[in-house]
């Protein structure tokens, strides 16, 4: 606990001389700022290695107690190296390569990293038991919101700016024969072997170079690294992806791979359908839990070897090394080689151990079992490994704890046929043994990939393939040599204290307290203490937590088990997951004209349509008094061909279709099997076996699939072909008293007189020089109108000719808003607005359209019972008694006792009548014409309205029949 400011410790570390395997370019330097101070590093340095070379030991503060923290794993997972870089939060400083001018800052340290006020939490450490916030701030209740505000200031993270970034993300699909997740020796060997067997391979490696632990090895490892790197480079069939991660394994080997730091693309999501997956993720070194284990200067052996051998950085002056495996021994040797004073090597294999690390702001001495204290500024631990089996777990494996090797071991037998595991994750071995295991696994992966390809090709389909796949026999399975793992001491904690989860600041004593409180299963313990829920996703913490839980409950580690490994293997940006913004959008052929004439766009599903051109009321008057034209292209249109169309229409619509003469049009309503209104529209018969059926624009796709369902599953014997032609035609509705005059000026070969072409009729003709147009006499607006369906490529041409030819007639474009007012004046209901998800046929104002004497149609039984039952809501016309008040749509209608009796579904000021008019759903006992009801306005006022005939204008419908 250090509340006093930490003076910058003397420059105990610094740059070493050239190392055989170093990845830095010592001849160039890069300037960057650290909390505002200018420092230097080399290309190839990570932010963390550059900082350590510059003598920085304290790199961050911990979550709850704000204890000073330094490097530990010096890898992507390092919990002590999370920085804000410019406006990007939570950057993995021990992985992110240094760039010129990087503005690197510690996160959530105020006023500064050296002197952090919130370190005062450390004082109250003993009072901040796990889940302390559940046990306090309960009373008085009214103070909880202010307590919460204080809690939120303790959020330990970087910041997101409200200004969107300019970085680019995109995606691509891939169909490799083999994905190899992990580019260490086994992964490289597997990739080479698979490629040599003819497979296409994606080799995915999280680090910036291939090689895994070989990179910080000795001369033998570096030689093997060169050899394997050359072998990979020699195989054109291998695509290498470094600084990339195979994020998950979803069903049927659907594998998202995130590529980072590509030229011009911040992150790219590669979506691979792999025939086989080889998981070669190697092993992650596990921290040791002991008092003082979170002090800056406590490093894992891999952390030390990375700093020394990869980045030529001296991690300390005087070191104590606790080792239980050859990697610990190698770390001690590397330190000695570069002149660090290795004061003591503690060999756990011979029962030796450490008690604690002591120091303020960093390690100053190490207390050994037996009491001896050794002065040191660096404590290195090598106590064992965790197998990162996330992708294997997602494939169905359930790794079991093996006391002999002190880790949870995957069980390849539980894996599906298309997933294999290679190298360190399966078992330890020499470089040659790992390469041999990888090689054999790679060949087996290629063999299985070929079998999967054959199986996919052999799936019976109707596709006529030029050369049907010759069924080759499967090659014999490849024998994969055994990877024998040497024993390893079980070293999780020495019980003296320390932190089990350094990201979330959860200590050993805190875990034990929580276990005694009853949170004694691995999932409950995780959720109560938040251990393993931090940025490292539990990779460094889970096994130690399980060990502490097992010890405390007297159960074995195998019985205790682990928490579920949850996708993704490494955190992925929302940008990479979203990719290019790509929500499909649909336009009508007249869109350029609309935009040139100031149409206000309305989002209607995937369509963008003109809402109005400036003055919807004037547009309504133009249609009522002169002539208007509207672009109704989005109206759904289905071309029906075949002799059995009447049977289909009888089955789907509530009304009758047997006797519809050629050239005639009929309105119809469709209900679902529960009697709820599904869609409506007009259908015209263009020829003996040729009908054109229109649907609502929002229902176009659903109705087509609904029709196909009946045809394909219920009546395959009916001869009907259905083809969507919604946008094969540009649809222009010409409406108004002068519409016949206007259309007459452009049409050829069609007598427009009412006797020849009456209401609810359809004809084909040439319009403005365009042949094969279809003209309908239908009346959604209630005026004399002709809906002209023009072959779409000529839509703009005909629209422009209509505007030109009708200038003297006062032709006016009108949009969806005016159309809504016109149809409301005529009392035409809109499915989905005047009806909802529960409105059955008789509640949609259909009156006698529903023919219950028909033998069968979709939804008939439910409609018959609705009719029998009665008492269902009615669709009625309504007029506020005060004509100037337009009740907002969805205002509720109240009964005398104040309960809800219905609602306003449509409501507008009618320019034609100069008053407000509405449609509404209403309980039957209030639905008689003339009844007065109370409408509750959103602002709380009550308004009186009178139930009327739904048709407010020209109830006899004379105007549209003229």
């Amino acid at each position: 606990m250090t509340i006093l400011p930490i003076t910058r410790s003397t420059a105990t570390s610094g740059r070493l001389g050239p190392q055989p395997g170093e990845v830095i370019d010592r001849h160039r330097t890069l300037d960057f700022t650290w909390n505002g101070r200018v420092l230097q590093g080399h290309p190839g340095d990570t932010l963390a290695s550059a900082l350590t070379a510059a003598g920085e030991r304290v790199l961050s503060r911990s979550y709850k107690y704000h204890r000073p923290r330094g490097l530990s794993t010096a890898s992507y997972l390092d919990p002590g190296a999370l920085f804000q870089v410019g406006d990007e939060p939570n950057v993995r400083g021990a992985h992110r390569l240094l760039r010129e001018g990087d503005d690197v800052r510690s996160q959530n340290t105020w006023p500064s990293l050296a002197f952090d006020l919130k370190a005062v939490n450390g004082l109250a450490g003993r009072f901040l038991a796990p889940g302390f916030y559940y046990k306090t701030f309960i009373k008085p209740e009214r103070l909880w919101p202010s307590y919460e505000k204080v809690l939120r200031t303790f959020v330990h993270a970087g910041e997101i700016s409200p200004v969107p970034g300019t970085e680019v993300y995109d995606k691509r699909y891939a169909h490799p024969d083999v994905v190899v997740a992990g580019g260490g020796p086994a992964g490289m060997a597997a990739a080479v072997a698979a490629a040599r067997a003819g497979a296409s391979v994606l080799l995915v490696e999280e680090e910036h170079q291939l090689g895994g632990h070989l990179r910080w090895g000795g001369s033998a490892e570096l030689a093997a690294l060169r050899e394997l790197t050359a072998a990979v480079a020699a195989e054109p069939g291998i695509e290498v992806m470094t600084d990339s991660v195979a994020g998950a394994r979803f069903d049927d080997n659907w594998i998202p791979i995130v590529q980072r730091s590509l030229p011009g693309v911040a992150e790219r999501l590669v979506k691979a359908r792999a025939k086989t997956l080889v998981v070669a993720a190697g092993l992650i070194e596990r921290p040791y839990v002991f008092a003082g284990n979170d002090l800056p200067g406590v490093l894992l052996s891999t952390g030390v070897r990375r700093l020394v051998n990869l980045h030529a950085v001296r991690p300390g002056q005087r070191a104590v090394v606790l080792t239980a495996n050859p990697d610990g021994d190698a770390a001690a040797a590397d330190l000695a080689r570069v002149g660090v004073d290795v004061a003591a090597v503690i060999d756990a294999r011979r029962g030796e151990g450490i008690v604690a690390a002591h120091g303020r702001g960093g390690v100053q001495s190490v207390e050994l079992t037996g009491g001896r204290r050794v002065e040191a500024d660096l404590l290195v631990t090598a106590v064992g490994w965790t197998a990162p089996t996330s992708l294997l777990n997602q494939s169905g494996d359930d790794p079991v704890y093996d006391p002999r090797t002190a880790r949870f071991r995957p069980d390849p037998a539980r894996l599906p046929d298309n997933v294999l595991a290679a190298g360190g994750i399966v078992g330890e071995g020499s470089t040659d043994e790992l390469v041999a295991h990888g090689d054999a696994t790679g060949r087996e992966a290629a063999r299985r990939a070929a079998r999967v390809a054959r199986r996919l090709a052999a799936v019976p389909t109707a596709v006529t393939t030029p050369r049907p796949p010759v069924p080759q026999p499967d090659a014999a399975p490849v024998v994969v040599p055994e990877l024998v793992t040497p024993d390893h001491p079980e070293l999780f904690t020495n019980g003296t204290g320390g932190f089990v989860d350094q990201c979330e600041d959860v200590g050993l004593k805190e875990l034990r307290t929580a276990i005694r409180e009853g949170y004694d299963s691995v999932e409950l313990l995780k959720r109560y203490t938040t251990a393993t829920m931090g940025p490292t996703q539990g990779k460094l913490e889970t096994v130690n937590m399980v060990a502490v839980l097992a010890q405390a409950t007297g159960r074995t580690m195998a019985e205790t088990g682990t928490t579920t490994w949850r996708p993704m293997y490494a955190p992925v940006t929302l940008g990479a997951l979203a990719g290019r913004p790509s929500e499909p959008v649909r336009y009508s052929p007249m869109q350029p004209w609309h935009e040139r004439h100031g149409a206000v766009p309305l989002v209607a599903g995937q369509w963008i349509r003109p809402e109005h051109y400036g003055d919807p009321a004037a547009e309504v008057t133009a249609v009522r008094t002169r002539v208007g034209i509207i672009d109704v292209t989005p109206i759904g249109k289905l071309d029906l061909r075949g002799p059995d169309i009447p049977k289909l229409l009888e089955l789907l619509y509530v009304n009758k279709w047997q006797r519809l003469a050629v050239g005639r049009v009929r309105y119809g309503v469709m209900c679902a099997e529960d009697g709820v209104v599904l869609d409506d529209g007009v259908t015209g018969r263009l020829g003996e076996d040729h009908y054109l059926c229109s649907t609502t624009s929002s229902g176009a796709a659903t109705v087509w699939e609904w029709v196909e369902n009946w045809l394909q599953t219920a009546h395959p014997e009916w001869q009907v072909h259905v083809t969507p032609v919604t946008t094969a035609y540009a649809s222009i509705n010409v409406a108004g008293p002068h519409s016949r005059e206007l259309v007459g000026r452009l049409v050829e070969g069609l007598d427009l007189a009412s006797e020849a072409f009456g209401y609810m009729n359809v004809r084909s003709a040439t319009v403005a020089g365009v042949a094969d147009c279809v003209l309908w006499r239908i009346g959604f607006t209630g005026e004399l109108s002709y809906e002209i369906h023009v072959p779409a490529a000529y839509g703009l041409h005909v629209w422009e000719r209509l505007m030109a030819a009708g200038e003297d007639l006062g032709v006016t474009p009108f949009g969806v808003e005016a159309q809504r007012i016109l149809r409301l004046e005529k009392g035409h209901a809109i499915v989905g607005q005047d009806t909802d998800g529960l409105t059955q046929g008789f509640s949609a104002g259909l009156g006698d359209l529903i023919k219950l004497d028909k033998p069968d149609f979709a939804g008939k039984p439910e409609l018959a019972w609705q009719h029998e039952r009665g008492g269902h809501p009615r669709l009625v016309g309504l007029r506020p008694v005060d004509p100037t008040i337009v009740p907002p749509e969805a205002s509720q209608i109240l009964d005398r006792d104040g309960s809800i009796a219905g609602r306003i579904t449509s409501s507008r000021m009618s320019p034609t009548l100069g008053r407000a008019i509405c449609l509404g759903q209403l309980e039957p006992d209030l639905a008689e014409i003339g009844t007065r009801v109370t409408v509750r306005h959103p602002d709380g006022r009550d308004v009186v309205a009178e139930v009327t005939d739904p048709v407010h204008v020209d109830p006899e419908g004379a105007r549209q029949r003229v």
Partner: protein
Amino acid sequence: MMLLPCPWCGPRSATEFRFCGEAGEAGARPDPATATPEQWRRYLYLHANPRGWSTESWYHGSGCRRYFTAERHTLTNEVRSTTAAGGAP
């Protein structure tokens, strides 16, 4: 998502298909002339909802635009058979 072997087009990602609910005898439409309300509403609302092999109707909306029946295991999402509606390919 998993692969679904369309009887017409062959294996495709399940994102190309629309799930249309349980098919087979559970989904069969009772005779509207004789069905009682209870029988009709069992057809509308009740599901077997097995945690295992299920016989279902699917629609290949982004492909051949045909309906087909599939036997799928609702836990592993393995599909062991698909048959085209109204007539084999």
